[in-house]
């Protein structure tokens, strides 16, 4: 289908980003391909070592999914902070990723969890890590003839928290920080730290992740990781808050989450 329409067509999943743009007349696609008419794309399932989220799985379903909660608590923590309960009834995870809003929350979560987008066209299928999928504000490596059919997340994590400062329900992040960990016995076997709203697009904090995966969780590594994450951010002063404030909040939230994770381990 997309092969036929090419450039002037737009895919519609939840429509919660595309239709607002059309209403504001920032977008006026000649053709809209409505995925909602296709059956069976709304799955949330585990297969082949991945948690797989079909491109029509709504944010609503993520909020309520026990499977998601048990595999990746970070996703369950982030989902309720995205838009509002009514918008979540339509908006999708995959649509959120493909929209690539620089303030979008799912890309941060997926970067923390090493998520991958599965893109399909008439020429076949390819898998793109989310960290390479997003190339900047509202831009991705998806080709015009491709549809993102799924986002998938490998393995499992047993700690996850998404801290988001928003002025009210439905607001985009002033600052948000995602932290996910897999801990066994006192060691950390997997860690993801990501930031929203503090740069031109979502940020994966490689340095902070390295500090924690290399040194485990102790007061020292926690403080260092918090500073490293803050250093990775490049926020702008705007009506939501100053650059300094946002940078500082990155450190506060990384610290709080890692403390919480360490607390869980101690217990």
């Amino acid at each position, binding site marked *: 289908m997309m092969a036929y329409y090419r450039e002037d067509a737009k895919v519609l999943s939840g429509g919660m980003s595309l239709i607002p743009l059309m209403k504001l*007349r920032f977008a006026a696609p000649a053709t809209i391909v409505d995925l909602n008419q296709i059956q069976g794309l709304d799955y949330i399932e585990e297969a082949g070592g991945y948690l797989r989220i079909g491109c029509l799985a709504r944010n609503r379903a993520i909020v309520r999914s026990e499977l998601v909660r048990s595999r990746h608590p970070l996703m369950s923590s982030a989902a309720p902070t995205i838009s*509002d309960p009514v918008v979540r009834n339509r908006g999708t995870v995959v649509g959120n990723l493909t929209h690539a809003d620089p303030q979008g929350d799912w890309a941060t979560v997926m970067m923390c969890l090493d998520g991958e987008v599965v893109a399909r066209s008439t020429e076949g299928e390819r898998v793109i890590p989310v960290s390479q999928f997003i190339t900047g504000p509202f831009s991705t490596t998806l080709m015009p003839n491709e549809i993102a059919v799924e986002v998938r997340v490998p393995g499992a994590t047993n700690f996850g928290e998404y801290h988001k*400062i928003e*002025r*009210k*329900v*439905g*607001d*985009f992040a*002033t600052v948000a920080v995602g932290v996910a960990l897999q801990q066994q016995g006192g060691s950390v076997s997997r860690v993801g730290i990501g930031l929203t709203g503090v740069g031109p697009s979502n940020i994966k904090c490689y340095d902070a992740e390295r500090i924690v995966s290399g040194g485990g969780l102790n007061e020292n590594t926690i403080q260092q990781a918090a500073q490293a994450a803050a250093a990775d951010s490049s926020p*702008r*002063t*705007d*009506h*939501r*808050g*100053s*650059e300094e*404030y*946002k940078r*500082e*909040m990155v450190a*506060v939230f990384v610290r709080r989450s890692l403390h919480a994770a360490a607390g869980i381990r101690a217990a």
Partner: protein
Amino acid sequence: MALDEIQIGGLGARRKRVEDARFIRGKGNYIDDFKLPGMLHMETLRSPIAHARITSIDTSKAWMTPGVHMVITGDMAAQHNLAWMPTLSYDTQAVLATDKVRFQGQEICCVVADDPYIAKDACEVIVVEYDPLPPIVNPKQALAPGAPIIRDDKAGQTNNICYTWEVGDKENTERVFADESMQVVSQDIFYPRTHPCPIENMAIISDYNSATGKLTIYLTTQAPHIIRTAVALVAELPEHMIRVIAPDLGGGFGNKVPVYPSYVIAILASILLTRPVKWIEDKTGNLISTGYARDMYFHCDAAIRKDGKIQAVRVHADTDNGGFFSDAQPTKFKIGLFHSIFGCYDVPYGYLTAQGHYTNKAPGGVAYRCSFRITESMFFQERFMQTCAYEIGMDQAEFRRVNFIREFPHRTTFGFLVDSGDYDKCLDLALDKIDYDGFKARQDAARKQGRLLGLGLSCMSEPLGAGNSREYDIIGIKMFDSAELRVHPSGKAVLKIGSKTQGQGHETTFAQIVTHELGIPADDILVQHGDTDNTPFGMGTYASRSTPTAGAATAMVARKVRAKAKKLAAHLLEVSEEDVEWELGRFYVRSAPNRGVTITDCAFAAYTNMPDGLEPGLENNAYYDPPNMTWPFDVYVTTVEVDPETGEWDVLKFVGVDDCGVRINPMIVEGQLHGGLAEAFAMAYHQMITFDSQGNCIGSNYMDYMIPTAWETPHFELYEVVTPSPHHPIGCKGIGECGCVGGPAAFVNAVVDAVAHLGVRNIDMPCLSSRVWEAIKYKKDVSGTPPLPGQ
């Protein structure tokens, strides 16, 4: 036996609203719900920039768009003498820009087309060329040497000042300040621009009938009669051929008082095209161009005696009025009733000055849920009272108590006459409910654990219910109000009032007043409002004035009707009028109480069996000119917890004690308070319109202008005290706005109190987490004045 007043829905009954029946079934009649035959749709093109000379407007492509009927520019409006219109503050305002644009969002052209989508398409192909000028976004910039003159259209305007005003006793005030035994406390505070922003935006359908010459205007207006007169005067149309219908309004809050440019053009278009023209504003249009509120800079000094008694205050206010001075306010008062400040305190001397400034921002200065700039005065008063208490080292509540007025009537330092109240009783009740005495210990204990608790108190008495007509008017029309009552032969009644509900429930409560006076069950009384052909002249609903004025008129007209019914009763009972007594719903013979007739009997007799010499019928009208304002008193007190690391804050508990005199319908009073307090919370918490250095409006849609949801809005715990108004016929005082007026200071005071031990005295609203964090981190006050930093 007299009727049970509560049972028949009289004074004091928690009567369920009659309006609900249509709204909960989706059968309300809001303007966008009307479809007239042959109706066309209008869309307005707005300026994307704040300050520029217009060099050209090319509408040719819009004219060629299929389905477009008319494109109206400022030049076209000028041909009909409508390029400019008068404002409610005796200034002029551009209807469609001809020379310059003066704020982002200003109206430039209107397109009339078959449907709104086409009108919007056509707006997109209009080409406007601009020659940009430096934008001005605050009074300081407006006064800077070399600043461009925004109102260069006005002959003789050589600066950006739009008014100056003063009141008080300068000489004696200065004398007190010169006394060295006084402790002087000073503070500067900014009340940011806000917007009333009802969920329903502005709307109009103008329907000109060329055969009859009648112009019918369906309009989102809180004051239909004033609009009718204004249209007649501005458009030079005969007033009896104009009918203004304000059907159901989706909220108003002061936003729906002024006349807006798109209204004028829709009326012009319907006359030129002789077809109905509908214009429905979008939210961005609403937020970016229609009546804003506040935007005021406050400076105050107080001279305080050793025992905590304030001896004098010196107040100065600078207002940012936008591109046109269009505040809705009585003629005499250039800064509304701002001088109501310190009204509940006994301050011997005061001197107040104010100055207004043109800037490149939308005009407005509307009374957003307040009686003309009272919200600003009460906010500054209560913020400043807190600061004074800190500086002189006195307890918050005690400091207020020491300064309360206790004898009524009391003439305030700036000239108002406060006539009633029991301030101590209200304050005691509020402090008890919040456990004021235990709070200090909790705050100290929390601080030791690194937690920040704060308590904020706000006390105020605001003058509500303008007029009297000696002092209060709108564009010369005196601020009285009216009611007309007809009792039908079967005893059912129709009440027509000059004011207009936007959700306050007039159809429910005004019937209750008639019930109280006549004993006719409220369910048997239909209340009509909002249609100028069918209601007596009134000034509309704003400034909490409906119950004080139209409500009083309702009681008075019911009394006139009762006086006539008494004559009919005497006739029916065959006794002289002097021998007839009244109890609710019934006249009886004094000497034989069992002999009586009901009000229904009298109504029937008025049409079927009247005595010789008595005019038939049972109806009357009343115009009520109140002798004074009403003086509600309110105490709001709240506790908050601030996150010391992030600056985020949560309300722990909120208590309100309100004395609004007699409550006609307590359920509705509480609903009004909840709504007002939610708006107060919004302003303190996150609701913000600001501007960057280029004059771009930040907060021009609901993603940035934040209306709190059920999730953020705190729980409000309310209590009542009743001291009746001494002059209102049934003892009522205004209430609709008290929460919104007195609430903001309580929240901000609580947040500042949580960090006051660090030396912080002020955080400008909204207390965004980033601002609170900055106050904690740098142990200093935080300003929120535009332009926004960092853009």
